[in-house]
């Protein structure tokens, strides 16, 4: 029996589905204004705004100071509760330590770490100091780390001893701006590795009082790297004023209420894990769960149940892995506290939305945003009827549209419903990225008139719901993360046997897409299983598991355009057995 066939296209909500009154209803939609939202934040005493004040200090100095801000769950058991007051002191110490090292406003502080409390102290202390925080994913290999540290003019890197030895030691000398490497978990001792500082030792000598740097709306706060089709990764800069968007979306898209226990499963190495794993829950003064461990179905259910998680923000890949583990595992526990589940990363398939009903008695609410938008833009909110498969509707203060590009380089807004085109957003929301660091031209190309062009293809139905269609470029979307094919190709090309490399996203039922590489070999090298594994290991050591290909195939030559560009789309069409489309620009020999 085809179960999907008997399911309605809309999951209608009734008041009985709401355990608390949703923050966003029609009245709030109608009366929304940014100034009113801004009035719910403090601003710095004496003027300006700083994310760390809004997330930590205002609670640490108020009624919520003894409330647990972060509940950290250790990988091998153990738990640490960190109150707002404690978070304030620890981040003050880190800010003092930075200042003591001569690191100031606008300087970039990178963090590469597993999810340990020090990561959060680093993040918030960096913001207090007016420095710019740039988080890296700990599953990056040495190459992506080197590239990003260099592009971001890193002055400080906070990491762990293990990650340092595995991934940083070999490349640190190649980052000319890097002044200090701080190692977490080395105890009070210094000099665990020559030339590095110990996190605990550094903080032991730093005071618990700190006056936050006087930052204003437009001062840079966060640097998140994302990937394009060509060239180097792009460092998207976000400002302290973005806190307003994090606050609004925490309130309306995630429906955070004062007593919530919130769990965002994303790693802070990606933008979701920073915007919603650190900032948004703290802005609302709720308790945020941090799990140090990697995905494990049983463990996740246990956390949801025993930690009384009420709002859960996760990702399609994780949901599909939970689905694979069977609904019985989910149903073996009860989740009386859980009332809202949201997902982001790639479109959530209708089956997964419905699976939420089966497993938890509530649907999963998809939403959409990207590194550049800094916060959730389009969402299924608690009061909305859900159309499974749709990303929902634009949040208040967000104006979206579908556009077509014309041959002359202009765009036309598509007014009809159900027409595919590029998703565009009216520029100017608070967490809009303010630049790609050192790549002004690439930044400008993202805008036309007053619109930001997202590079995502979508359509809007007659009820105003948006539906994701695909990417307008060759960027690969795997497990919710964007991977630039060029970065992968470049790493493969460093192997002496490889003459050319072309990398595509291969559709995958669990992760959306996986990275697949096609390579041709230099004369004197023959395709073999052995060489395939050698190249796979080579790429994984350089790029890390998050970026490296999962599959490699050999080709005699790669198809190229007459201008010499590798035709990834043709590789993909062939891989999928699709029509190859217009090949008129193809090189004759391919």
């Amino acid at each position, binding site marked *: 029996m085809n179960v999907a066939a008997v399911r309605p296209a809309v999951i209608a909500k009734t008041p009985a589905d709401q355990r608390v009154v949703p923050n966003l209803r029609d009245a709030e939609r109608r009366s929304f204004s940014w100034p009113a939202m801004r009035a719910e934040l403090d601003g710095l005493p004496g003027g300006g705004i700083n994310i760390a004040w809004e997330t930590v200090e205002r609670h640490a100095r108020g009624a919520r100071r003894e409330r647990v801000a972060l509940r950290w769950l250790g990988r091998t058991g153990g738990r640490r509760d960190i109150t707002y007051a404690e978070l304030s002191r620890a981040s003050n110490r880190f800010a003092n330590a930075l200042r003591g090292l001569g690191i100031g406003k606008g300087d970039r502080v990178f963090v590469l770490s597993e999810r340990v409390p020090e990561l959060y102290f680093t993040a918030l202390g960096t913001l207090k100091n007016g420095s710019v925080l740039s988080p890296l994913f700990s599953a990056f290999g040495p190459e992506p780390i080197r590239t990003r540290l260099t592009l971001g003019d890193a002055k400080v890197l906070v990491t762990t001893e293990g990650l340092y030895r595995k991934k940083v030691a070999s490349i640190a000398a190649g980052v000319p701006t890097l002044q200090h490497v701080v190692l977490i978990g080395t105890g009070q001792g210094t000099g665990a590795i020559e030339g590095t500082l110990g996190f605990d030792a550094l903080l032991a000598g730093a005071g618990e009082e700190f006056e936050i740097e006087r930052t204003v709306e437009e001062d840079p706060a966060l640097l998140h790297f994302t990937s394009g089709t060509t060239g180097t990764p792009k460092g998207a800069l976000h400002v302290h004023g973005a806190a307003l968007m994090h606050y609004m979306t925490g309130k309306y898209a995630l429906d955070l209420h004062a007593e919530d226990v919130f769990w965002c499963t994303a790693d802070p190495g990606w933008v979701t894990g920073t915007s919603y794993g650190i900032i948004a829950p703290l802005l609302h003064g709720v308790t945020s769960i941090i799990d140090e461990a*990697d995905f*494990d179905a*049983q463990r996740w259910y246990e956390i949801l149940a025993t930690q009384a998680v009420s709002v859960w923000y996760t990702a399609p890949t994780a949901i599909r892995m939970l689905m694979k583990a069977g609904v019985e595992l989910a149903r073996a526990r009860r989740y009386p506290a859980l009332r809202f589940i949201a997902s982001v990363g790639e479109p959530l398939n209708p089956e997964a939305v419905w699976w939420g009903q089966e497993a938890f008695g509530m649907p999963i609410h998809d939403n959409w945003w990207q590194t550049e938008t800094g916060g959730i833009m389009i969402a299924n909110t608690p009061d909305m009827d859900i159309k499974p498969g749709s990303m929902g509707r634009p949040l208040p203060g967000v104006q979206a549209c579908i556009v077509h590009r014309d041959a002359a380089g202009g765009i036309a807004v598509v007014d009809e419903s159900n027409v595919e085109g590029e998703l565009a957003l009216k520029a100017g929301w608070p967490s809009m990225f303010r630049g790609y660091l050192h790549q002004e031209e690439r930044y400008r190309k993202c805008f036309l008139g007053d619109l930001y062009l997202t590079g995502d293809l979508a359509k809007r139905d007659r009820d105003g719901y948006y539906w994701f269609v695909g990417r307008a470029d060759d960027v690969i979307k795997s497990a919710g993360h964007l991977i630039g094919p060029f970065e992968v190709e470049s790493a493969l090309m460093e192997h002496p046997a490889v003459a050319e490399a072309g990398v595509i996203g291969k559709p995958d039922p*669990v992760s959306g897409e996986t990275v697949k590489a096609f390579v041709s070999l230099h004369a004197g090298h023959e395709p073999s299983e052995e060489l395939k594994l050698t190249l796979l*290991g080579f790429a994984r050591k350089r790029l890390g598991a998050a970026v490296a290909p999962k599959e490699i195939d050999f080709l005699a030559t790669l198809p190229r355009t007459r201008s010499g560009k590798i035709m990834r789309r043709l590789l993909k069409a062939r891989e999928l057995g699709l029509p190859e489309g217009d090949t008129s620009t193809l090189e004759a020999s391919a």
Partner: protein
Amino acid sequence: MTEMDADSLRQALFAALRPIAPEATPEEVRGDLPLRDQIDLDSMDFLHFVLALHERLGIDIPESDYPHLTTIEAIVAYLQQRQRGTVPPPAA
């Protein structure tokens, strides 16, 4: 099926790992430290690894037992128990 000894299980384990993470050789990976501390295995890699173990050995590895699969030696010990049909206690 004849029971495999620890050495054979260890070999099978590395053979299952090889197509997923060829850089994880017995020379590179210590048996007494968590596997995922030593090599990058994302969640998908890990699931593929468990699936490959199952296919290679014909031993069922239920999702609820994944917490046992930490170090090489812990995985070998777990697989030995599964071969004998005993179900290990839940991981701490």
